[in-house]
């Protein structure tokens, strides 16, 4: 499931830390990017790689908002709904996103292309409202700007990093 190349990178990553368990979250990020989400097999692979129990690994993964234990879309859109973004129109933006994609926050489009997720403060309040698409910030987002971004995303013209 995990390529030899990735595994070799993990072997190097583990050496950074006095205790190899420290590499767990960085490894989960990369495995998630490679597999698409943290599937049962992915959890089992990571657990075996770090000699931890699958329940232990899953317990850790389930603590963090960016680690997905259920399948998610190819692209992930995080929309900040915290205070400053809300003051400047986040809820309007979220409704616009939901309408455009025909899904609710927390859901994935039927074609498996895009998932939506509400996020807490992204540290982008000075340029609110903010969203993140595949790890890249988009700030002072308006409904018009959002439409352009979605268009680019569908055409594969939006650079991002899923790790």
């Amino acid at each position, binding site marked *: 499931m995990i390529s030899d190349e990735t595994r070799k990178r993990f072997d190097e990553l583990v050496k950074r830390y*006095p205790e190899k368990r420290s590499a767990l979250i*960085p490894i989960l*990020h990369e495995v998630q990017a490679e597999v698409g989400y943290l599937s049962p097999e992915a959890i089992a692979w990571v657990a075996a790689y770090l000699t931890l129990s699958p329940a232990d690994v899953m317990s850790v993964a389930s603590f963090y908002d960016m680690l997905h234990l259920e399948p998610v879309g190819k692209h992930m859109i995080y929309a900040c709904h915290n205070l400053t973004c809300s003051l400047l129109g986040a809820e309007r933006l979220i409704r616009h996103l939901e309408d455009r994609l025909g899904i609710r926050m927390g859901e994935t489009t039927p074609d498996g292309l895009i998932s939506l997720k509400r996020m*807490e*403060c992204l540290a982008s*309040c000075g340029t609110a409202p903010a969203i993140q698409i595949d*790890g890249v910030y988009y700030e002072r987002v308006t409904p018009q700007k959002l439409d352009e971004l979605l268009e680019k995303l569908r055409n594969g013209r939006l650079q991002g990093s899923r790790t």
Partner: protein
Amino acid sequence: MAYEKILTRYRDLPNYTGTIDEYITQGGYQALPKALREFQPADLIEIVKRSGLRGRGGAGFPCGVKWGFTPKDSPKPKYLVCNCDESEPGTFKDRMLIEEEPHQLIEGLIISSYAIGCRLAFIYCRGEFVSGAQVLERALREAYGRGYLGTNILGSGFDLDVHVHRGAGAYICGEETGLLESLEGKRGQPRMKPPFPAISGLYRSPTVVNNVETLSNIPHIVLRGAEWYAGIGPPKSAGPRLFSVSGHVERPGNYELPMSITLRELIFDHAGGIPNGRRLKAVIPGGSSAPVLTEQHLDVPMDFESLAAAGSMGGSGGVIVMDDTVCMVRVGEIVSRFYHHESCGQCTQCREGTAWLHKVLRRIEHGQGRKEDLDLLLDMCDNMKGKTICVLSDAAAMPIESYLKHFREEFEIHIRERACPFEGKGAF
């Protein structure tokens, strides 16, 4: 007298991108050789104590004192961890510092590691800082390339490795022991104290956790002296501070200023005042955990002591400004939703209390509030403070208490009218 910027001086330079060469051209990496050649580690701790530098993450603890808590001769290795988990709503200065001027942080990190005797340091970035972490990785490679990191740094015999470590989305990892748990590959659940990290932190070894902005100050203190630094701003809140101003202001952004600046000057002179001819209604001066202030507090200086005396706190320096279209019950609903979502779930009062605060505020905002709800909220807030492993519970309670203190009538109207009077009129 115009304030001379220190941490963000680079922002006035055209086309500055924060590479190592640009940083060096602007006087960067001069403090490091000075620190290594002219000072013993203990001297540096003393200098930082004398400078009056206080932590910029939220608690405002004196940095040099924190360093001094680590044992002098520890059989275990010591660690320095840079807290770059910036997640306090309303705060966006650390992200700017790592993305735009990463070497200032790295130089501060190296000097600080030398001061406390650390040979392996980590920068813990919140998971969402994908590009910020990439910038830091690139900057670290540059620093290794120039001999500022690695073995025998600048011929001093001092060795240091630094790694960037990304979290995965959890506010509580900004709490220093939650951060250490997360860095050890666990759930980010805060630890019981004592022992404090200075005695038993990362891998049960003596550890110092310092915020990005705090460490970014260190090169300047070393280069220009503790007395120069202590002379900036009020005596107990020395040095420059980055204020992240957001919300209903003309020019939101990060403003580097001495802490003698008043809320009024910050909002109206620097951030351009309230747009659309509206009036200021409320301002949160130190991140969403800080109790709210109102127009009557506008002349309060932004130092730790003055803000505490005004009933709030300096916190993380995140200043959220709200105009008179804003419903404070809705603000309470949003803020309590955040703490509800972010409670790690260990302590009863916090796990259940944050959920109930959110639930009660939501029902008031949506016209289902009950007469007894306001007393219930206050009683909950009171019981949620000071009783838990970390202060997330306090952070959830304090703002809600303050909204009720300053805007009780607004809550009462919601309950009496069984509706939000701002519905459809407000911006959110």
